[in-house]
């Protein structure tokens, strides 16, 4: 008797969880990603089944993944950070300079400095936005110019070459553990940590509350200013980490490194189902969105589409994703209204 009552809910719970996974917004985008990979592999098996192809598939989007995760966290609080591309570029150059100016500097220290420096740039954004109560779009548009300007001013026509950086560091960009690139492992660890924190921890949940309705969150007693500030610091720190990885991956860093990343990151988050007006979406979705963006870029030439059309496809994807979100939201509202009316009867 007791066993049946206990097992039935357990079974239901599993079914419920499976249903939740099937219905989740992220699943759709994951299916799209898998379809793209299958289509490209069917046309050219090397896309997946060669060492280089497999590694590239995992490796190339990892840097955008980090930036997109940070961006998603900020967008969930109903803000946006347009300065991530400039933060990435500035940190990438700083990484190179550290190796040149401080010979023999430990790699781990460089990573730490990159994180801290990115976090500091994010702190500037966050402080201006949270304390002066001005819109994130304007402030980060301003810091996009400022950080990039500082970068160009500092770099000039100079650039960091692969020969300026230690071999161990550059090896990080291509090294694999069990066929999985180290860069991807770093990105996925960050992703899991962020995903877990946002889903299971109180401050993480509060970010969603703030994004759904900042005024209500404030009245409820949430520390809105502090949470938004931290979200920007985290976003900056992740862009900084991405900057360090960028220099490890590409070896050369000029003053334009990472320009345009801000729109890619916002695009990845939007494709992954993060609502641009906050309060909804997951970092998982943003991560899959980042993979989809880059994988499509690589798959198009194989599928016989000239790679000039890449950006158009990306545009269609972004618009398709938000239209889909809108339709899903409308259906949800209708269902909830029906449920409420039924209850009232």
């Amino acid at each position, binding site marked *: 008797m007791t066993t049946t009552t206990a097992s039935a809910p357990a079974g239901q719970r599993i079914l419920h969880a499976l249903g939740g996974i099937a219905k989740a917004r992220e699943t759709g985008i994951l299916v799209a990603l898998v379809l793209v990979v299958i289509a490209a592999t069917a046309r050219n098996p090397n896309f997946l089944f060669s060492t280089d192809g497999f590694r590239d598939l995992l490796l190339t989007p990892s840097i955008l993944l980090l930036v997109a995760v940070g961006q998603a966290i900020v967008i969930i609080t109903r803000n946006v950070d347009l300065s991530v591309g400039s933060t990435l570029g500035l940190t990438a150059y700083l990484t190179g300079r550290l190796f040149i100016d401080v010979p023999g500097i430990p790699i781990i220290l460089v990573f730490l400095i990159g994180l801290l420096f990115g976090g500091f740039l994010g702190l500037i954004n966050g402080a201006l936005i949270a304390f002066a109560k*001005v819109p994130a779009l*304007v402030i980060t548009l301003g810091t996009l*110019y*400022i950080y990039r300007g500082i970068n160009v001013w500092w770099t000039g026509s100079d650039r960091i070459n692969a020969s300026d950086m230690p071999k161990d560091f550059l090896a990080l960009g291509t090294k694999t553990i069990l066929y999985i690139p180290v860069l991807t492992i770093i990105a996925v660890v960050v992703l899991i940590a962020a995903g877990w924190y946002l889903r299971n921890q109180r401050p993480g949940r509060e970010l969603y509350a703030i994004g759904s309705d900042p005024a209500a969150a404030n009245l409820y007693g949430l520390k809105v200013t502090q949470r938004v500030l931290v979200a920007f610091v985290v976003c900056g720190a992740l862009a900084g980490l991405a900057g360090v990885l960028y220099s490890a991956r590409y070896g050369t860093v000029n003053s334009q490194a990472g320009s345009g990343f801000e729109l890619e990151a916002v695009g990845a988050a939007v494709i992954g189902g993060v609502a641009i007006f906050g309060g909804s979406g997951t970092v998982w979705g943003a991560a899959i969105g980042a993979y989809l963006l880059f994988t499509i870029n690589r798959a198009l030439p194989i599928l016989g589409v000239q790679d000039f059309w*890449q950006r*158009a496809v990306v*545009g269609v994807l972004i*618009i398709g994703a938000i239209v889909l979100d809108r339709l899903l939201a409308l259906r949800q509202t209708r269902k909830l209204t029906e449920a409420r009316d039924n209850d009232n009867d």
Partner: protein
Amino acid sequence: MTETTTATVKIARSYRDYSAPLWRRVLLTRESAVIAALLIVILVASVSVDHFASPITMTYLLLDITPILLIALPMTFVIITGEIDLSVASTVGLSSVVLGTLHQGGMPIELAAVAALVVGALGGALNGFLITVVGLPSLAVTIGTLALYRGLAVGLLGTTAVTDFTEFWKDLAKSKIGETGVPSVMILFLVLAVLFAILLHFTRFGRGVYAIGLSPEAALFSGVRVQRTKFILFVLTGTVSALAGIYYTLRFGSARGDNATGLELSVIAAVLLGGVSIFGGRGSLHGVIAGVLLIGTLGSALRLASVTSDVINIITGLLLVASVVSTSVLAWLRTRRARPGGKTRATPAAPQ
């Protein structure tokens, strides 16, 4: 004693908008501050920077900022309604490519230009449709169409460029009015600016634009056709961007897919600097035009003073940040002063 002071403060507060004399209401605004900054930059540069005062500087300055000036006009409307359009630079690129490919295919420039304008209007209509009919946020939609329109532009032409435009049209884009050194394209801009200024400041449509920005629901209930107004604005933005694209193509004599990449940020920066609130409902065209001129003049003066373009970028960014932060700092100071006996104790001098 204390009662009288609080009473006067209260009266002063409730009639604040009308209590100041006319000159203060006209001069102590965001727009006047931007115009003053523009005049100061021009004065200082004319005195201290060599060659800045020569007519050729002004000619090139105006030629360079014309696309931003043109697009800033409809963008002001869009931002006042509380929306945003990030796809304008991509529309510039797309219209440039349409003009180039059609002309290369043997179509006369006049017809190709009309086709480019139609494409721009269609692009704006797609933005407007997705935003007003489907009900999507404009920030997300126009990030999507930013990629889409740029992708179409690059896809159509690839890495090639169309450069065989007739000298007549290329010269027209660069021509000057008589001996003045003012580019002829400024006539086009002035006509458009006057039209847009009348539309924004002296028509019911324009008042509706402000009403939408302040509160879309209140606007709807007072009879403003919110969705239709927004749709028209996005079509206008697309069309004017296409016009800027045609000018851009003829001025540089080259139609390329990557023309004017990143221009959207310059336009938005200039509009916001000119006193338009990103929250909507506030701003005026003369402020915006002064904002565009301020960024352009500052850049031109610094370049002549052989300051490199990266420093100009830093200054543009700082101006933008300062312009929005100053507004909230001023508002904060005002609430502090208007609230004697509040949390922060008023200074003894304040009541007088």
